[in-house]
């Protein structure tokens, strides 16, 4: 491969790596995002933390 052909392929390789990292990040987000019912319960728990039941 000619030396002058490297910059475009390097650019495309960077785009590919970025997409790969993004895919992994989105996959992790999907696994770690709780369902809405859990978000709801956690929010109420945080809002009442330190207030005491009485």
């Amino acid at each position, binding site marked *: 491969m*000619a030396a*002058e*052909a490297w*910059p*475009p*392929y390097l*650019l*495309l390789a*960077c*785009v*590919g790596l*970025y*997409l790969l990292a*993004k*895919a992994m990040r*989105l*996959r992790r*987000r*999907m696994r770690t*995002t*709780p369902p*809405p*019912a859990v*978000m*709801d319960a*956690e*929010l*109420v728990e*945080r*809002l*009442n933390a330190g*207030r*005491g*039941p*009485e």
Partner: protein
Amino acid sequence: MNGKLAARFSKPYVTAHRFERLRYCRKCGSVTSLRGAACSSCGRSGTLRPLSRMGAGKARLRVLLEAAILAAAAVAAVYLSPNPLEKAIAAILGAGLLTGCALLLRRYSSTFAPYRLHRLLLDQTEQIARGLDADEKAAEADYDADRYLDCYEKLREIGEFLLTDRIRYNKIICLDHFVLRKDMDLELESVVPHKFSKLFARYLWEVSKVNRALIREKTLDYALRFRGDIERLPYGPELMTNVASAALRSRSNLGACEYLIGDYAVALPRDRFLRLCSLLAASRGEHPELAARAAAVARSRYAGDEAVQRLARAFS
């Protein structure tokens, strides 16, 4: 009617999740749980938006910007290629990467909003807590201005998030200003406090007279826990009779409320005593002590009542 007010509550705002009730002000950024059009912090009207939409515009812009940068990189790769063959290869690779990006966004697009909402709820907890405090102050102002209905409706919204006895007592204090009717959207289970309270016992008595169906597990548990305190009140026996009547709604309550029902069986109205007899007949042998006490009441109080005697024979 002891100076009590006739009130009509607005329909409760029903949402699948509590966070859907929260709105934020586009001008001052404060969060509110109230339904009104005006922000409870800055007082501006028409500036409230659902909290879940906070930052949605920026997130969409970020996705578009990211896609534009990737497209520009693919175009730059084609432009930088030295000959037509290399340009064609770069174009094919660039198109493939952009297609991959589009597929990736499409595959995970359904997770964007829940993820952003989760981050938002975590980051904005302090802001939400401050907003609820401002809402409570607005409710206090309504109470001070004798606007009890507005105050109660505000507290009802705040009480969805703040599960403290203070909010519960304040709600009961407001409800004490109204004539309670069966057609009202009254709440009972959500105002059950942690400690014994004469205020709540009185409200429970009022509610038990107009809508016994509202007495459910949490209230039954409260009545059993503080039975001694309640019975010492002037209206205590009547209240406990109503609670015993309510406990007869479900067969599963017979075990938990066996002694309460047994003690108040003699005071139960005839239809509730018939209900008790039919429950005992359906669960024959499961509650022998209660069955014996009910049979004694049937003999002493309903001696000439054929319907009661027939059922009493079925379980005794």
